[in-house]
């Protein structure tokens, strides 16, 4: 019983640096034996790096990785009890299907008839019986993927690592393979660690989802937990579609947004606290205007999506995405209703930008690697030297022409908040700047950043306790 509870993979305080860049930042993760775990995140979030650290193709800069209780942080990949299914299959082009699958077994010096038996069993498992002597280059993408899976599972690893294995397949094939993978996981009973950027795939397949962003784990939980109770606006936006709005928690079980109070089920945020409100598009009820309506608005657009209609409804200046089986044409006045338990409240990670800086004189402060002019500071209260600088999200100006700004940055993450965009800008000083704006920008745009002197608030840096 004890061994059942013991995790098969333990990642403790693992960080990985590539030069100056931090790919993984203090990752802690424990995976139970037999689990189907998906590491989910946008490209560049560090999910593949984490998988490569477990496989042993890269070594962690800091921290410890254990597999089946044994420390393997520095162990070379060929001595680890894991096997990998690669994104582009990586089948050896000079070997046929049989020799590809038998590669690992032959290295273990297994007798020939055992190898033959095992290869046949593995091929049967992936539904590729009678393909033994085919040239791997003559196989279709889906078939190559099956051979790649067979090549990994034939070695009976404790853990199977899959690096976006279905990314190169077309939609129909992907759906079929998802079902087969899930079936295989059940039959084999081994641990699967699956990396993907496709949230739907993650929700379909996993027992546990690990959502990652910017080298950090954002949330770990079951698919339903992650979908219904996203921990922050990043997770809410990344998993499924959502309406994310700024709101204020008036008191326990009462939240104010869109110019009115709503009952909800969350508590413990304190009184009059700014929060993010998340409502899934399918949780908004839409109907012709009636007394039941909590919100009234006008339909802006209506698109048929196969199973449902997706409508954008403008109401009190906020745009809501609504999914319903009934269509309401653009221009129609509608009423909307949301049930208390469908309103998800998330604590705001921050309510303004806070930077560490240095006060140079009464009207100049240095932060983000630049010297900024600021409104005169009362030197009685704040002394020269290390200070904290606050700037509201809405008070940062982004400029098309990068040279016009005091410093430049790249737009990394865009969140639509119903009536404005909340942008994460990665400044050249390697610090995030958060910006609220009504302008439309694209991911990856290079922008100039400027801040007016009167919008820079300088305060005393608290001594660390």
């Amino acid at each position, binding site marked *: 019983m004890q061994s059942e509870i013991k995790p098969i993979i333990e990642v403790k305080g693992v960080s990985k640096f590539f030069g100056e860049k931090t790919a993984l930042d203090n990752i802690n993760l424990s995976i139970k034996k037999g689990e189907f775990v998906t590491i989910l995140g946008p490209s560049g979030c560090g999910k593949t790096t984490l998988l490569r650290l477990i496989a042993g193709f890269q070594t962690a800069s800091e921290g410890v990785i254990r597999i089946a209780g044994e420390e393997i942080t520095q162990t070379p*990949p060929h001595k680890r009890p894991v*096997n990998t299914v690669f994104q582009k299959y*990586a089948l050896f082009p000079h070997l046929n299907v049989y020799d590809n699958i038998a*590669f690992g077994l032959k290295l273990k010096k297994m007798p020939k008839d055992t190898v033959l038996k095992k290869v046949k069993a593995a091929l049967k498992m992936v539904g590729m019986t009678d393909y033994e002597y085919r040239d791997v280059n003559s196989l279709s993408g889906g078939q190559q993927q099956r051979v790649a899976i067979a*090549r990994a599972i034939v070695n009976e690893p404790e853990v199977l690592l899959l690096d976006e294995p279905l990314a190169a397949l077309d939609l129909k094939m992907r759906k079929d393979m998802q079902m087969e993978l899930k079936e295989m996981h059940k039959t084999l009973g081994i641990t699967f660690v699956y990396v993907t950027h496709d949230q739907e795939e993650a929700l379909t397949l996993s027992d546990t989802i690990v959502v990652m962003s910017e080298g950090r784990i954002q949330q770990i939980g079951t698919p339903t937990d992650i979908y219904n109770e996203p921990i922050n606006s990043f997770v809410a936006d990344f998993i499924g579609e959502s309406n994310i709005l700024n709101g204020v928690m008036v008191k326990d079980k009462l939240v104010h947004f869109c110019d009115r109070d709503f009952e909800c089920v969350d508590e413990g945020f304190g009184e009059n606290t700014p929060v993010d409100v998340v409502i899934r598009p399918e949780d908004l009820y839409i109907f012709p205007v009636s007394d039941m309506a909590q919100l009234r608005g006008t339909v802006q657009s209506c698109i048929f999506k196969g199973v449902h209609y997706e409508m954008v409804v403008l109401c009190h200046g906020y745009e809501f995405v609504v999914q319903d089986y009934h269509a309401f044409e653009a221009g129609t006045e509608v009423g909307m209703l949301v049930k208390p338990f469908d309103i998800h409240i998330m604590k705001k990670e921050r309510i303004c930008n806070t930077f560490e800086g240095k006060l140079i004189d009464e009207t100049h402060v240095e932060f983000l690697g630049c010297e900024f002019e600021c409104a005169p500071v009362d030197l009685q209260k704040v002394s020269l030297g290390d200070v904290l600088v606050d700037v509201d999200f809405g008070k940062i100006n982004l400029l098309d022409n990068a040279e016009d700004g005091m410093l430049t940055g790249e737009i990394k993450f865009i969140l639509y908040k119903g009536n404005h965009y909340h942008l994460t800008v990665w400044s050249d000083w390697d610090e995030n700047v958060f910006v609220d704006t009504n302008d439309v920008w694209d991911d990856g745009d290079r922008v100039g950043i400027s801040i007016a002197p009167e919008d820079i608030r300088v305060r005393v840096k608290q001594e660390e306790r």
Partner: protein
Amino acid sequence: MNKLRLFFLSRRSWTLPYLIFSIIFVIVPLLLIVVYAFTDDAGRMTLENFRKFLAHPEAVNTFIYSIGIAILTTIGCIVLGYPAAWILSRSNSSYSRTLILLFILPMWVNILIRTLATVALFDFASLPLGEGALIFGMIYNFIPFMIYPIYNTLQKMDPSYVEAAQDLGANSFQVFWKVVFPLSMPGVVSGIMMVFMPTISTFAIAELLTMNNIKLFGTTIQENINNSMWNYGAALSLIMLFLIAATSLFSSDEKSDSEKGGQVW
């Protein structure tokens, strides 16, 4: 008028200058070699030239000896060149560029100057000229042609093959012999073509590095043609061409079932 414009604009017409050039300097001479090889001084059709070659043990011996030297040179180039290509493909980019330049740099120096310098070097070290010097000189001259195609294949090789092999339990030695080496075969074959074929026909290196003591097949051809034995010389050239064609046929066969490789041609 319109027709003329169309003619100049069509892409095919731009290949015309080269086509004319190659007809004059490649195709016609090749045909001449064939014609000369099968005729005698008076221009009559004959197989006498080939009979003479087979009847002359000296010529046949030179021929076999040349092939032997070419094979030794090629093997030497693979043994020395493969590790060099491997190191080049593994080193980080800024460093490897300098290294590649160092390997390629000697190719910019004229082959005769390089060989004369080798002779001077052997004199300076008071090493005897002869067979050893010949093979050294050949390897020295031809090794860049071996390194480059191998380096090309190794560099283009998807690193995930190596990772897949490691993942399946192969140590570094097994990764090399079971995956990297077989996958780099197209580069090796291409290197062999670039080294083996020219070494059969060289004569300058042999003359200079053996003080004219060792004769290679190239030297025999050159001597015959210099002595106005055009027909016999042409027949010997044709035999050599046939051999070269045979090697390239063999290697193109090899190529067809190997995957993408870094051939130079």
